């Protein structure tokens, strides 16, 4: 008996169900659409939401890129990429500009995205109201009534306690003036990249069984009080050790031998592209 594997691992009906959820998500920006969330050869909570979206969208002509916290080479990124490639045979790239489908965990690439590209984000906790209201039944109602005072109250309490809003990643955003959405744990640095982005952004939470989306050119506003404005992470006086870049998200690293603290561009493909371009300039 010959048992062929399905293209892109999932069976056609599952992929269709996910695509239907995606269509609904795009139609209602920021609204969390429930979906079935299939079993995968990865544990739930390890990117299964994003992987299912990618698997149900990938076609033979696509070029994929998978990143994990800005890196194309971490174990998670490599494993997910090889799962997608083994089950589809599509080509992959590390260059943001060349990819048609980018799956990412916790970062939006530094290079601005283009029209026609799709960014798939892995989401651990899709519900922005969860830490103020544990009941799903109630949070659904609150979304329906557009009652987001809980999210604001949490931010107000942060200001009372710490003098500033204390979210470091996953800072809530309001999409298209209606739904408040958890942008997955991307740093606040990446929040403004969602506003009016020409690329389609899809969010998948496999464990929580939710899909949501930010369609191209949608207004995305990071929540902030009138007198406590939204702020990105600041790297004042710090620059990338290898490139000298200052307008990118930096990792803080420690040299284990000398104990010296240094900074390096977090987006590994952006870093590599920059270094290669510099080298070409030298040889010419």
């Amino acid at each position, binding site marked *: 008996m010959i048992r062929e594997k399905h293209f892109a691992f999932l069976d056609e009906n599952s992929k269709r169900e996910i695509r239907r959820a995606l269509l609904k998500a795009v139609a209602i920006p920021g609204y969390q659409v429930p979906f079935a969330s299939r079993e995968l050869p990865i544990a739930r909570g390890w990117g299964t939401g994003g992987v299912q979206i990618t698997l149900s969208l990938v076609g033979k002509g696509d070029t994929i890129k998978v990143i994990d916290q800005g890196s194309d080479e971490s174990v998670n990124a490599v494993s997910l990429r090889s799962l997608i490639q083994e089950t589809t045979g599509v080509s992959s790239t590390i260059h943001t500009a060349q990819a048609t489908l980018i799956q990412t965990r916790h970062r939006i690439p530094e290079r601005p995205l283009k029209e026609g590209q799709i960014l798939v984000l892995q989401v651990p906790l899709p519900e922005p109201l969860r830490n103020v209201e544990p009941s799903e039944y109630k949070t659904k109602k609150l979304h329906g009534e557009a009652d987001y005072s809980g999210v604001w109250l949490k931010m*107000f309490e942060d200001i009372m306690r710490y003098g500033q809003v204390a979210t470091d990643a996953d800072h809530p955003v309001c999409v298209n003036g209606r739904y408040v959405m958890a942008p997955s744990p991307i740093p606040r640095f990446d929040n403004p990249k969602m506003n009016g982005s020409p690329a389609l952004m899809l969010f998948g939470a496999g464990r929580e069984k939710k899909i949501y989306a930010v369609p191209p050119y949608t207004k995305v506003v990071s929540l902030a009080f009138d007198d406590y404005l939204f702020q990105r992470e600041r790297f004042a006086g710090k620059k990338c050790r290898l490139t000298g870049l200052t307008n990118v998200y930096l990792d803080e690293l420690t040299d284990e031998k000398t104990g010296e603290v240094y900074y390096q561009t977090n987006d590994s493909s952006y870093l590599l592209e920059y270094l290669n371009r510099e080298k070409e300039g030298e040889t010419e």
Partner: protein
Amino acid sequence: MKEQEQPVLTLKHFNKFFGPGCPYCREKPENRRNGYCPKCHTVYACQDISLSLYRGEIVGIVGESGSGKSTLMQALYFDNAATGGEYHLEAYQNGKENIFSSSRQQQKWVRNMLLGMVYQNPTMGLKMNFSARSNIAEKMIAAGNRNVHSMVARSDVLLDQVHIPPARRKDSPCNFSGGMQQRVQIAKALANEPPILLLDEVTTGLDLSVQADVLELIQEIQRERQNSVLVVSHDLSVIRMLADRTVVMLNGRIIEEGLTDQILEDPQHPYTQQLVYSLL
């Protein structure tokens, strides 16, 4: 001829049932035993209650536990959905709209802007792990305020008024005494200057000197702002001290209403007589 004054709050034929109801109990109220149907086990918590509240007036609601006082208050504050009846507020659409049949968003607006509630149990009215200031700001945030400085200033004014010392305003109510928690609740209820206050057994569970403090505070605030207040209590001395008019409830029905002095000195209904004469 002078036009008759319009009440700020009017409640007409309000009903609240818990359960499906059956022909046996629905059509013949006399079959209900103490607000309870022995056949379908439906509880008739509030039956055909009509009530009005005028500007600057304090109306007391007394009755034993289980008489439907708190259910009535929760329905007025939209914590519970009403089964039937009409609810009008003068400040909302000039009293022409039945708020029970308005949308949930409208009800939330009324709740935030026109009503202030103080619960018997502070855990229901306060977020125990948030600071006292945040608890007061919650109402202002719900009303659309997005300016931190103005909300802090306003909550400090209110906390001053209810005598919470500045040093404790960043603390959470879970670290407060019962009397302080109750005072924070009162400050929260006043956050958006609502014309109507709903007080549900505010002094129950407090010791006598603290009770006196809280009652005095309520009187002071009411005199200053001319709020209309609905006070629920099973404690007749609280009612005697605060209320201009009193309503007596039993088994989900109003059995007697009138001026407080009248009711306390010359009760008509046998239950009210029992209630008044059983004062220790």
